[in-house]
């Protein structure tokens, strides 16, 4: 398998852990070293939900139980920071900031990303003062949780998935929340305009004010922040701001050793970077000529593909992208791609919005492209299989809530 019989994975998010897990289940017998900045790898979706609310602690959101690492012979190194990687013809050297180094046949970069901060005047100073929050790491959620006391005024910048989830948690803890997003509704590109409008309207019903605007300027003000939203005559005062406007991939290690980087470490369909001994997975990576899919399951699939590359095994089957989100006691899931209706494309709705499980579907030329469902996981599981198997679908049957979607799988 190589001179060292060792793979070093840099980063303990879902992509890194999935790589380790898939290497072992695929029969890799060598050493697996997993280097994480945290004490142990934990799952990130709960950071805006149950973990932020204080209903689950860090141990409860661990990606694997402590004994898993010994059972799977995964050498967990953390908390530790990688200073550099040096890929050569025969191996890769991975050097930690404390000077320790590892030599491996392959390095897998699973370094994730950090929250993007828009270039708003005063935002940096307010962040320095601890008044501007983001949500990527458990420590971020710990800090935000301290702010979310009853009647605390929170401005959420960005009404996408993370912003909506965190706003929903914040209001459930008694905070007074304003969400600002330039799009009305946010998420229309991901879930379709009608579904996006319904989802966004849930905030108002939960007592959150939604504003169609952008943050123009911020000023620290006696333990709080003054925020100027575009188009508003006066600044507003908040106890804190949460910024949820997307992420920036962490590509520094890759750039420093000369790998090709362009809005992510560029990889091919087998997760191989421009150097044959280095692979990249998850939010840090970007498939050449594609947008990054910044979802939990996509990161897991990256890890499985990277393991298959190392093992020279066939990659896992392709499947339509799937994600979930939760807001105001509603469970939202999506699969595939949603499009607005046009000459070739139909958008079909099933069920009545707000009164029962309901879902929306994009159909083109008799084939399902995508689906989004509220409180209807079965619809999404059926839709995923209809997409993956390219089964011809009848829009009228999909729209009929009495029709069993599972039966459509039989053609």
């Amino acid at each position, binding site marked *: 398998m190589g001179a060292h019989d060792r793979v070093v994975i840099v980063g303990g998010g879902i992509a890194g852990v999935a790589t380790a897990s898939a290497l072992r289940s695929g029969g890799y017998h060598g050493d697996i070293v997993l280097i994480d900045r945290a004490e142990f790898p934990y799952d990130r979706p709960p950071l805006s939900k149950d973990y932020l609310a204080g209903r689950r602690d860090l141990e409860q959101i*661990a990606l694997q139980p402590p004994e898993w690492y010994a059972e799977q012979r995964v050498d967990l190194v953390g908390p530790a920071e990688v200073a550099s990687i040096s890929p050569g013809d025969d191996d890769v050297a991975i050097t930690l900031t404390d000077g320790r180094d590892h030599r491996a046949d392959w390095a897998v970069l699973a370094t994730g990303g950090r929250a993007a901060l828009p270039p708003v005047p005063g935002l940096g100073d307010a962040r320095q003062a601890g008044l501007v929050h983001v949500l990527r790491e458990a420590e971020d959620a710990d800090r935000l949780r301290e702010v979310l006391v009853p009647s605390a005024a929170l401005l959420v910048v960005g009404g996408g998935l993370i912003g909506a989830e965190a706003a929903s948690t914040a209001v459930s803890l008694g905070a007074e929340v304003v969400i600002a997003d330039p799009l009305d509704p946010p998420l229309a590109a991901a879930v379709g305009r009608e579904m996006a409008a319904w989802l966004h309207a849930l905030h108002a019903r939960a007592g959150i004010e939604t504003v169609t605007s952008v943050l123009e300027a911020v000023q620290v003000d006696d333990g709080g922040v003054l925020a100027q939203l575009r188009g508003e005559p006066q600044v507003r005062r908040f106890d804190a701001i949460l910024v949820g406007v997307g992420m920036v991939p962490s590509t520094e290690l890759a750039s420093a050793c000369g790998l090709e980087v362009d809005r992510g470490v560029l990889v091919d369909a087998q997760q191989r970077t421009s150097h044959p001994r280095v692979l990249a997975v998850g939010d840090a990576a970007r498939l050449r000529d594609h947008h990054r899919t910044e979802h939990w399951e996509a990161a897991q699939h990256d890890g499985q593909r990277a393991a298959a590359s190392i093992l020279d095994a066939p990659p896992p089957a392709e499947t339509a992208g799937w994600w979930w989100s939760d807001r105001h006691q509603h469970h939202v899931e999506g699969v595939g791609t949603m499009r607005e209706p046009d000459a070739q494309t139909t958008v079909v709705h099933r069920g009545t919005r707000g009164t029962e499980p309901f879902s929306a579907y994009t159909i083109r030329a008799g084939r399902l492209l995508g689906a989004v469902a509220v409180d209807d*996981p*079965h619809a999404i599981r059926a839709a995923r299989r209809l997409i993956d198997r390219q089964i011809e679908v009848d829009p009228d049957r999909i729209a009929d809530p009495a029709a069993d979607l599972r039966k459509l799988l039989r053609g």
Partner: protein
Amino acid sequence: MAAGIRVAALDDIPEGEGVAVSRDVTGTEDDIALLRDEDGRVWALNDTCTHETASLAEGWVENGHVECPLHSSKFCLKTGAVNGLPATKDTVAHRLEVREGEVYLFPGEHPVE
């Protein structure tokens, strides 16, 4: 409990789906999900996903597994073994028998291979 507890008629459980039997009936710590596969056979697992709080009876049953309705972790119908994150803990499988179209549950007994 030599005869088991009659918990459902087989026809009450649609193929590929499940129904939950209350712990008040089973006397177990958790409710028990009766899960029916595409071949019409029925299996019993603890109902609550070992990850969070979803009911596996509301899951998707296919290819020998039930897929959690919230985050899609899969559990083996025969053994309760977990197969796929985010859940990491196996769940508990229970023995059952189908006699004359009725499902009899033996809570706490391992299924017979």
